[in-house]
């Protein structure tokens, strides 16, 4: 049974006990983020003999973090709601393989396979960037991102967050296209690149990436992209990105389709 997490101190005791035993984990627990979820009343946990499941509850979806003791796997487990879980790995699934098999046996299905591309920083880059500007219209950015990315796998910022990102200069745009990045220290991550269907095949993606690299090019840049999105991969490779070994499988459990099964 899922129970709401009401105290970070209680949760951290459980996390520490598991850490001491050695765990396979799909996301690093971060105190600040967990406390924020607890304040919102959106963090739930399920203790299992093999470890701990943490759920971040959203309106229509639960997002799952697991800590499974090394050498063990996930037990048969029925999610209460539509649930998404991401399994990141480097080079090979390794210890994640058995856990992924258990999720699939539970009724999860893979909805996205992603890989990460990296590009070493270079000084004095000067790519063509056409009419790319800092985005000032967070509403329009939000619309285009929502049209372009899945609400389940898209990791989309909310409109309020986009307004903040625009103020920070982390949204670049031109008519029909938007690019969102995050940046800290010596690394930067291209988070979202979207071009409206009516504006595709005009090189807008290249102008946006070019402008982003002109601004951030001395930093190590990373981008996650769908394995099957060959046009995007070709675009990034054109700018010098290459696969760095990190991959992830996104698994989804749909309550509706489960109930439809005979």
């Amino acid at each position: 049974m899922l129970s709401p997490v009401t105290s970070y101190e209680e949760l951290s005791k459980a996390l520490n006990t598991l850490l001491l035993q050695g765990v396979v984990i799909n996301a690093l627990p971060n105190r600040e983020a967990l406390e924020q979820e607890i304040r919102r009343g959106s963090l739930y946990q399920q203790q299992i003999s093999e470890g701990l499941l943490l759920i971040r509850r959203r309106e229509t979806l639960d997002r799952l973090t697991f800590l499974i003791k090394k050498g063990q796997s996930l037990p048969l487990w029925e999610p209460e709601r539509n649930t998404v879980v991401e399994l990141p790995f480097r080079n090979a699934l390794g210890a994640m393989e058995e856990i992924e098999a258990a999720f699939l046996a539970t009724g999860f299905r893979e909805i996205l396979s992603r890989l990460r591309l990296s590009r070493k920083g270079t000084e004095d880059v000067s790519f063509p960037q056409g009419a790319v500007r800092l985005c000032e219209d967070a509403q329009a950015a939000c619309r285009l991102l929502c049209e372009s990315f899945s609400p389940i796998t898209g990791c989309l910022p909310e409109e309020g967050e986009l307004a903040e990102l625009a103020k920070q200069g982390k949204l670049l745009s031109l008519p029909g296209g938007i690019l969102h990045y995050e940046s800290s220290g010596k690394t930067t991550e291209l988070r979202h690149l979207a071009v409206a269907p009516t504006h595709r095949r005009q090189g807008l993606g290249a102008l946006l990436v070019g402008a982003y690299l002109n601004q951030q090019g001395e930093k190590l840049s990373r981008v996650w992209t769908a394995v099957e999105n060959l046009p995007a991969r070709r675009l990034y490779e054109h700018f010098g990105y290459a696969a760095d070994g990190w991959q992830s499988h996104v698994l989804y459990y749909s309550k509706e389709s489960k109930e439809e099964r005979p």
Partner: protein
Amino acid sequence: MKEKLLAILSEACPEVDFETETALIDDGLLESLDIVMIVTEIMQEFGVELTVDDLLPENFNSVDVLLALIESRTA
């Protein structure tokens, strides 16, 4: 102790030169998931108890910072 720590780190991320890098997190050389892997190895190898609150990126920026964290728990 430093040699043992370097061995753990190099096994987790063979492509990184841990002896010279001093901004492992800021430079993006270590991922958050690498940290989890490294922490469990450190706890087993050195017999120290690190907690979830120790998993701050700034504790993993260099071998020396990480060594100081371990030593503070073994003192």
